[in-house]
């Protein structure tokens, strides 16, 4: 007999899988899913193997833009994106952080020119753990500093 799924399947939409445990709510916030019209299913601490846990976010009737994927890459780089059509996974996308991030977060330095004018830009210096450098003021940002500056 087939095991019952812990998270119900969706017909069309996007499943963000393999999110590090505890990060699901950050993903929800970044994608502004609180106000989303269709159903959103959040699963936390799902056992993915004997030793590992993960979070999952399922969003009905929605595909993610490139910008949104980059945002997820910043906070949950290990997650994967599955695009679902008619209950089938039609595409699996591994999240890849681009070398240059534009516009999705603001610089942590209050004296940075990008806080006053233009579009913030960051060079990805290191992918693990994620370390980015402001293209303008050259400050390094990592971990929580990045999360706090995301336009949530």
């Amino acid at each position, binding site marked *: 007999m087939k095991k019952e799924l812990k998270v119900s399947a969706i017909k069309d939409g996007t499943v963000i899988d393999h999110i590090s445990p505890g990060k699901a709510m950050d993903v929800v916030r970044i994608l502004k899913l609180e106000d989303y019209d269709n159903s959103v299913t959040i699963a936390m601490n799902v056992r993915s193997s004997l030793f590992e846990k993960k979070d999952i976010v399922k969003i009905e009737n929605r595909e993610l833009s490139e910008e949104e994927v980059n945002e997820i890459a910043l906070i949950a780089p290990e997650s994967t994106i599955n695009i679902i059509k008619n209950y089938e996974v039609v595409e699996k996308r591994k999240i890849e952080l681009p070398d240059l991030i534009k516009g999705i977060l603001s*610089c942590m*330095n209050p*004296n*940075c*020119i*990008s806080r*006053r*004018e*233009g579009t913030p830009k960051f060079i990805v210096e290191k992918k693990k753990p994620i370390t980015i450098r*402001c*293209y*303008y*003021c*050259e*400050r*390094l940002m990592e971990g929580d500093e990045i999360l706090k500056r995301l336009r949530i």
Partner: protein
Amino acid sequence: MNMKDRDIISIRDMKKEDIEYILEKSEEMEKNMEKNRNLLNGYVLSTLFFEPSTRTRLSFESAMKRLGGEVITVAEAKTSSAAKGETLTDTVKTVEQYSDVIVIRHPNEGAARLAAEAVEIPIINAGDGANQHPTQTLLDLYTIKKEYGKIDGLTIALMGDLKYGRTVHSLATALGYYNVNLIFVSPEELKMPSEIKKYLKSRGISYREISSIEEIGETDILYVTRIQKERFPDPTEYEKVRGTYKILPETLKLLGNAKIMHPLPRVDEISPKIDRTENAIYFKQARNGIPVRMAILSLVLGVIE
């Protein structure tokens, strides 16, 4: 090397070859002052200072004029454009119409980079907040090289506010390209940031961190910077620290033949009595800004290669 239209924004953009090339050209400039008197004839430099720095502005203006170029200046850029609500982008785009190269100083970090994105002509960063002041670093390197004929193999001590000091961060970063021994002399509260120490380690540069002049021992260069009162929440702590990092005539006994550098202006961290000694090279250092800026202006305007 063709550096025509290159922006000079940050030492971090520069490879060792770029730095060496600029130093080489600076030396040629210094040797041929007379010959180059009309090199930039017909070129116009705009100096755009959103915060005052008379010294830096005059140094650039002198460099341009010594090459026969013209200078137009917005000394009070802050009051004239920003106050009217004009964006930095619009200001530099307008000034671009009047000139061939722009030197910019701005209180916000990243301003020079933003300006460089907005215009086609070369931008030279003369200080963007606490971030970069690359021509200062180049003239520092030029001074060291001129004094010793080399940079490799030297011991260089940086002293003062190493935590917030833009000058020492840039200089330490640039010295990462050379085979040097570094000594960081600062109070505990104002130590060199770990980012820079990590970078130096990755380049195999050895450094020592100490908290007093007495511990320096032998060094070829002692680079002194000011410790600002604002850095200390407790004024008595500041008073204590301040006296410890002063160069007085009796300090020289500890320093041997070390050459003393300082980005100027100084307040009281180096006694004027030091000025006449063989150790003092900080006024020479200021003068070295001229050939270095002459070389940079000529290079980015594509008049020399």
